[in-house]
């Protein structure tokens, strides 16, 4: 980056104005770079909302902009989770939508009519610029070196670990939450340093904003008390800590309770109890500290000390008792899976089925953080050397976030800021040491004449460098140039790596897929939108669509049709119902679909294109989730061959072949190929020559590359026959053999 060179130049520059000017320019450039590097997806594809969750946020934002704040707050959405509906206004974090709504109205007020979609798409890059600024401020509180802050800002601006969640179009809660996270930490550090109520109150305000924006606020809720607690345990209690912590907690807790989704959680759930406990502890410590100042007697002091310990034990015991008796909600499943990585897999398949809840693979650390991964420990070590109050914070944050990032992929996001700060501290230390051009040669003569040195030289062997030249340090230009050159090369490589990762790994909207044609030109695969618009235009307004929950938000956002389940996953049973319908035989599925008034069923099938994120690959999760609720009717074992293989070809188990999902995926698929040649390109296996047959549903739409297939659920037969009979009757007219029919009937009897 250019910033480090200029950071060193700062030293030579005299005059505060020039420095400030340079700093502002560099920060503006960094913010510009941060925004620019996130625009790959807009340039390559178009200004479109990405992935899954952002589609819900986008839909909610549109609702907010159209209907105003109050109806958004009271929004009951009857078009999701049919037939239950969802109290959307009370079960979302409104910060993101409100932010874009405010931006929209400000722009309108300034007579800049910008489409709400563009605001949503560009909100994340815009916030990343602010995040770089906040990182600069945070780092500046930590060290005196002027270049560290700029380096940290530059790192934060382009590191893939953060870009992964903030490219243009990924309109998710994290888009603004990371900025708020870093900024809240900055304000907290400022509050602890100055012991000021003002900064404490600001911390609480931004904490409240953070609570309104992202469920990850719990990280702050636990990190700040931990910081305070560690400081107390280190014997570093000071009135400053009391003022900053208590003003943050008292205001911040109230602020967080304003969000309906959070509600009474801050006093009810275990995750928030540490903050409350430290608050109480600080009151005690503060009181004792005050009384100690008034009292000369030492015995009384120790008595008080015992009292503090006693109260602490009582409070902790009370907390445990309340948790056991159920007054305070115990830890949620997602939290348990933070401590025991196997927990979710056993108890809550719905959490384990989300790929971003998986433990992190180690190459991901290097992939997301590049060279910072080895600079990071050096920075943390440097914090240990001085260990002021704010550096204790860095150390705690580093330890906690490293652990969490190892447990869950998506928590890499909370690790990234601290890695940027710590590694910038280490890097600026290197640069400050080696870019210092001054050479203290003049003193060497005086020290030579020193009598003690001469005596020492007489005793010590002449070979020691320290006796020959008493000034120890690196003063040769060659070594300086080597190190500085090496660091510059590293920085360049870092930029290259970040750009490469961003452009290749993190800039795909996943709604629109890209592939390369043999001649190297880009080919856009737009099956998702094709299918969703088909739904929008060819089905009635209230047609209920059943699909796996991954696509719920997209169907709601793009096709604007009611769905049974979506990515909110608040009702495990409902999801399991859909899983059961997908994984059972048609005769079982049809009543379920009738009961839920399903009109269309949507499946994603990648077999033709080799698109691996399709429903057959996710199928086992549907089975597992359904098995969790109906262990007698759905059995995961039956979907594996006797040798324990998951197959879709001729050797697939009967349960697999008769499951609705399998039938819908491969229905008519063999007609694309010459007889017996049908090939599934994802599983790399040959599909049975005789394709599955459907009786209760009929094919309605298949997209260009067969990625999305939509089936219409048949109405009840006019003559009161069941659908199998209807199909066989029709076939009979078409001179079809009876053997086929009997096969189907055997299955039904079974």
């Amino acid at each position, binding site marked *: 980056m250019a910033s480090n060179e200029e950071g060193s130049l700062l030293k030579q520059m005299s005059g505060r104005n020039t420095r400030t000017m340079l700093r502002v320019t560099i920060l503006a450039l960094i913010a510009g770079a941060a925004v620019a590097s996130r625009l790959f997806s807009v340039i390559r594809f178009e200004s479109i909302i990405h992935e899954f969750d952002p589609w819900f946020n986008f839909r909610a934002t549109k609702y907010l902009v159209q209907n105003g704040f109050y109806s958004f707050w009271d929004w009951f959405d009857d078009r999701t989770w049919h037939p239950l509906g969802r109290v959307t206004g009370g079960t979302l974090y409104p910060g993101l939508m409100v932010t874009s709504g405010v931006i929209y109205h400000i722009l309108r007020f300034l007579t800049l009519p910008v489409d709400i979609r563009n605001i949503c798409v560009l909100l994340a890059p815009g916030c990343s610029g602010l995040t770089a600024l906040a990182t600069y401020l945070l780092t500046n509180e930590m060290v005196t070196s002027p270049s560290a802050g700029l380096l940290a800002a530059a790192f934060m601006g382009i590191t893939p670990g953060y870009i992964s969640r903030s490219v243009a179009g990924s309109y998710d809660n994290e888009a603004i939450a990371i900025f708020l996270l870093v900024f809240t930490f900055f304000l907290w550090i400022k509050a602890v340093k100055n012991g*000021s109520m003002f900064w404490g109150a600001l911390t609480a305000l931004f904490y409240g904003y953070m609570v309104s924006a992202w469920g990850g606020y719990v990280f702050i809720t636990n990190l700040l008390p931990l910081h305070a607690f560690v400081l107390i345990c280190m014997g570093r209690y000071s009135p400053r800590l009391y003022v900053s912590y208590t003003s943050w907690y008292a*205001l911040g807790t*109230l602020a967080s309770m304003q969000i309906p989704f959070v509600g009474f959680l801050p006093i009810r759930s275990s995750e928030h109890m540490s903050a409350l406990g430290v608050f109480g502890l600080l009151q005690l410590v503060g009181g004792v500290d005050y009384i100690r100042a008034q009292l000369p007697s030492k015995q009384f002091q120790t008595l008080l*000390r015992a009292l503090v310990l006693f109260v602490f034990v009582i409070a902790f015991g009370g907390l445990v008792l309340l948790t056991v008796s159920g007054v305070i909600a115990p830890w949620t499943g997602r939290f348990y899976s933070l401590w025991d990585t196997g927990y979710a897999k056993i108890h809550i398949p719905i959490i384990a089925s989300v790929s971003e809840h998986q433990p992190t693979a180690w190459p991901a650390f290097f992939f997301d953080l590049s060279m910072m991964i080895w600079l990071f420990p050096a920075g943390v070590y440097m914090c240990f050397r001085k260990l002021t109050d704010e550096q204790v914070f860095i150390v705690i944050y580093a330890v906690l976030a490293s652990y969490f990032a190892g447990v869950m992929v998506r928590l890499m996001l909370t690790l990234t800021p601290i890695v940027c700060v710590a590694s910038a501290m280490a890097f600026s230390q290197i640069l400050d040491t080696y870019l210092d051009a001054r050479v203290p040669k003049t003193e060497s003569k005086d020290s030579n004449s020193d009598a003690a040195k001469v005596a020492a030289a007489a005793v010590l062997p002449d070979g020691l460098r320290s006796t020959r030249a008493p000034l120890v340090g690196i003063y040769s230009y060659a070594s300086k140039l080597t190190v500085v050159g090496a660091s510059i090369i590293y920085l360049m490589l870092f930029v290259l790596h970040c750009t490469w990762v961003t452009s290749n790994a993190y800039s795909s909207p996943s709604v629109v897929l890209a592939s390369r044609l043999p001649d190297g030109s880009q080919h856009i695969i737009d099956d998702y939108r094709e299918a969703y618009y088909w739904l929008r235009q060819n089905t009635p307004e209230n047609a209920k669509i059943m699909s796996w929950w991954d696509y719920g938000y997209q169907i709601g956002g793009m096709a604007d049709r009611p769905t049974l389940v979506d990515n909110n996953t608040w009702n495990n049973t409902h999801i399991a119902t859909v899983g059961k319908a997908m994984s059972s035989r048609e005769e079982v599925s049809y009543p379920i679909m009738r009961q839920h008034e399903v009109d269309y069923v949507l499946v994603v099938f990648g077999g033709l294109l080799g698109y691996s994120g399709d429903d057959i690959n996710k199928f086992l999760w549907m089975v597992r989730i359904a098995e969790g609720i109906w262990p007698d009717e759905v059995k995961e074992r039956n979907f594996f061959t006797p040798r324990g293989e998951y197959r879709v070809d001729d050797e697939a188990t009967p349960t697999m072949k008769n499951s609705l999902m399998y039938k819908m995926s491969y229905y008519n698929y063999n007609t694309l190929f010459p007889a017996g040649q049908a090939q599934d390109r994802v599983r790399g296996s040959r599909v049975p020559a005789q394709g599955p047959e459907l009786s209760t549903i009929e094919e309605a739409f298949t997209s260009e590359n067969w990625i999305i297939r939509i089936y219409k659920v048949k109405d009840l037969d006019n003559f009161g026959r069941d659908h199998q009979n209807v199909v066989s009757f029709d076939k009979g007219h078409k001179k079809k053999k009876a053997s086929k029919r009997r096969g189907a009937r055997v299955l039904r009897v079974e």
Partner: protein
Amino acid sequence: MPPKSRTTGQSATPSSATTSSSTMSTPSKSSKNAGQADAQQIVQGVWSNYVKKTPQRTKLLDTFMLFLVAVGALQFLYCLIVGNFPFNAFLAGFSATVGQFVLTASLRIQTNPENKGEFGSISHERAFADFVFGSLILHFFCINFIN
């Protein structure tokens, strides 16, 4: 000043802890009586010290804090006896007292001349302005939360 006091406190801890544990482990009546008399004396000494040394303004703050504690305890008692039906209202009222108490305590700490070293950057006027700022936010949230 604070580091010095901290080091002395730490060095004094082990010896005093052992003595206190020894006195506490022997529950003879005479020592208990003596301890009570001692405690009374100490309390009296502290009280007279407090009345003499504390400035008028700080006393005002202390009275206010005492009042807040009383109100908070009253609300809590009410909640225990009558029940917490409008839980929002109880929570808002209770946290208003707690928050106000904390803010007042912070103001008191910041304006205490003994803490001059800790709060070099904060003048008394600044402390009061901060106090007002914090209280405004606090009561805004409370009123919003009352329902």
